[in-house]
């Protein structure tokens, strides 16, 4: 018993070391955010003489943008999962010669350069009055979220035993009810994973935010950060601080979501 405790302790140490390597650039960014110049040209490993000017500025100027980012990303996750999950289930379980064609079409959609999609949406939004709106940006972000979520969810649902749904059907449940009552709960893990990345895609979007907004009102952080990056003059100190600050609420959300990716969920359900 104490043997395995030691082993697990060693794993934790290894895990921390891996993290240190992987997150070093993130640390370096934090370091830069605490330098008056916003760069690390003369910085040591530790920010011994930190300045918080960038943080003060970011806090006072980017709060609203941060809220906007969270709303857009969360909205994208909800919309994408609502649309994608039934489709992914259909593509994984229903047998049809259209499945291959649908998958190909979905993959092709991900090969189109984002700017082409953004330009097309701009023209459409301009007429629909969706420019400068949160719903508009949510829909736009779905252009990367929906195809991704369908493909990912489908690959997980491929291994769902058909017997599960069959059993419910025998009890007289309709196809849709069986989907909601049985498939969705079992697919919790993959839904969270797909939702996680949909969130991240949407969070890091710059292109749609730039293209589909024309005034200051709706402005995600990725765009807000550009108010420190002028054509000729850049305030890296504030840029870095904004990046650090905006990552904090998001990582809390991600940790919370990831906690639910439980082990062996399906095994338990099948029993």
């Amino acid at each position, binding site marked *: 018993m104490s043997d395995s405790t030691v082993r697990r302790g060693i794993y934790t140490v290894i895990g921390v070391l891996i993290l240190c390597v992987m997150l070093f650039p993130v640390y370096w960014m934090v370091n830069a955010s605490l330098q*008056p*110049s916003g*760069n690390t*040209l*003369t910085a040591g490993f530790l920010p011994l003489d930190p300045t918080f000017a960038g943080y003060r500025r970011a806090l006072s100027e980017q709060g609203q943008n941060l809220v906007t980012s969270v709303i857009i990303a969360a909205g994208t996750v909800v919309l994408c999962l609502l649309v994608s999950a039934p489709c992914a289930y259909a593509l994984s379980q229903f047998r049809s010669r259209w499945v291959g064609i649908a998958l190909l079409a979905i993959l092709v959609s991900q090969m189109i350069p984002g*700017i082409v999609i953004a*330009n097309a949406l*701009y*023209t*459409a939004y*301009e*007429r*629909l*009055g969706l420019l400068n709106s949160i719903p508009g940006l949510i829909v736009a972000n779905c252009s990367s979220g929906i195809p991704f979520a369908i493909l990912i969810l489908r690959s997980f649902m491929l291994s769902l035993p058909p017997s599960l749904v069959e059993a419910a059907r025998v009890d007289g449940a309709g196809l849709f009810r069986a989907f909601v009552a049985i498939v969705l709960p079992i697919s919790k893990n993959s839904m969270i994973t797909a939702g996680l990345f949909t969130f991240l895609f949407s969070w890091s979007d710059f292109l749609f935010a*730039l*293209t589909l907004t*024309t*005034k200051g009102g709706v402005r995600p952080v990725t765009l807000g950060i*550009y*108010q*420190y*990056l*002028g*054509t*000729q*003059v*850049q*305030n890296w100190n504030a840029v870095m601080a904004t990046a650090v600050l905006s990552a904090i609420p998001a990582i809390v959300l991600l940790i919370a979501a990831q906690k639910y990716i439980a082990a062996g969920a399906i095994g338990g359900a099948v029993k």
Partner: protein
Amino acid sequence: MISNRIAATLAGATALSLVLAGCGDGGNGSSSSSGQSVSSLTVLDYYNNDPDKALVQKGLDSCASKLGITIQRETVPGDTLIQKVLQQASSKTLPDVLMLDNPDVQQIAATGALAPLNDLGLTGDGVIQGMVDATSYQGKLYGLAPVTNTIALFYNTQMLQEAGIQPPKTWDELKAAAKKLTKPGRYGIAFNANATYEGSWQFLPAMWTNGGDETDLKTPQVAEALQLWVDLVQSGSASKSVINWTQGDAKDQFVAGKAAMMVNGPWQIPALEKTPNVKWDVVTFPLNKPDQTPVAPLGGEAWTVPLNKDQAKQQKAADFVKCLNSDENELAWAKARFTVPTKTALLDQYVKEKPSMKAFTEQVRTARSRTGKLGDKWPEAAKVIYQAIALALTGKASAQDAFKQASGG
């Protein structure tokens, strides 16, 4: 024509446009109020960060109140402006007043998107010839720039004093000074030689001063100028990283004390003033031979008026641009934003009030615009220039061959 119809048909095939069909063509809402008095103008520019954003806003506001209108302003990051302009152009939603970087004016004017300002009562009289060249296309004026800027040589006065040298006046002095100022952890000079238009822009003082010309880049004068960059890097007086540096990076190096001199523009002065321990001064870019005159490139943005079916609005927009180019606003923006007025008559007064801008103002008097000779063909030449610089600085070609190789010949 055909393409339009096909594209429209295809667009109609998509679900989105089915929805659209119900909404009809709501295209350009701004152009329907012909004949009415104009109460507001839309403005697009790239001064997206403070303090510039707020300082420009002040000028815009004061002109707006003079004309009795309100303005709706949109600011975008600099490198996305053209993209935005194209989107708005294709959906016919261009702003009433559009700011463009001066070398882009002719390219956009060539598409027929801009209104000739001469017809709307504006002239380039009294404006530095170089800037009028940049904002004119086929003999007509399409934009006016209230203020301009250029680049010169900044130097750290303390470091030069310690080394016992005077600010360099010739290339030989520059190379010698840079070498002498180089110490472990510090380079003699920093500049931007990256493969962008910015890299070409930084090369122009050397190229033009030496008699090089963008109409023929395969001359010895141009090669000599490139040799100067190569010598500075190969002797170790400048970092090899200059091929990746922006002008902002060069400033960071200078501020951090890792470069004793730098080629840069006056827009860096506010940042330099934030670090009072770095003492600096500016001189015009050195000459290859003492009898040459310094020729630097003109920077700065012009304000233009996109064509508008609504004549009254177009006229109001032109009046607005005229107001932005009044003596009063030129001086106000120049003083607040460390730029130089474009009207020659204002220069002496300006230097008197703002002595720190003396070197830049001197450079501006003789400066040229990038598009003065080649017009909308300038970008091609600029591309050859920055590619040649990259080839020479990475040792893939000699300074003599670099331009030949870069132009694909």
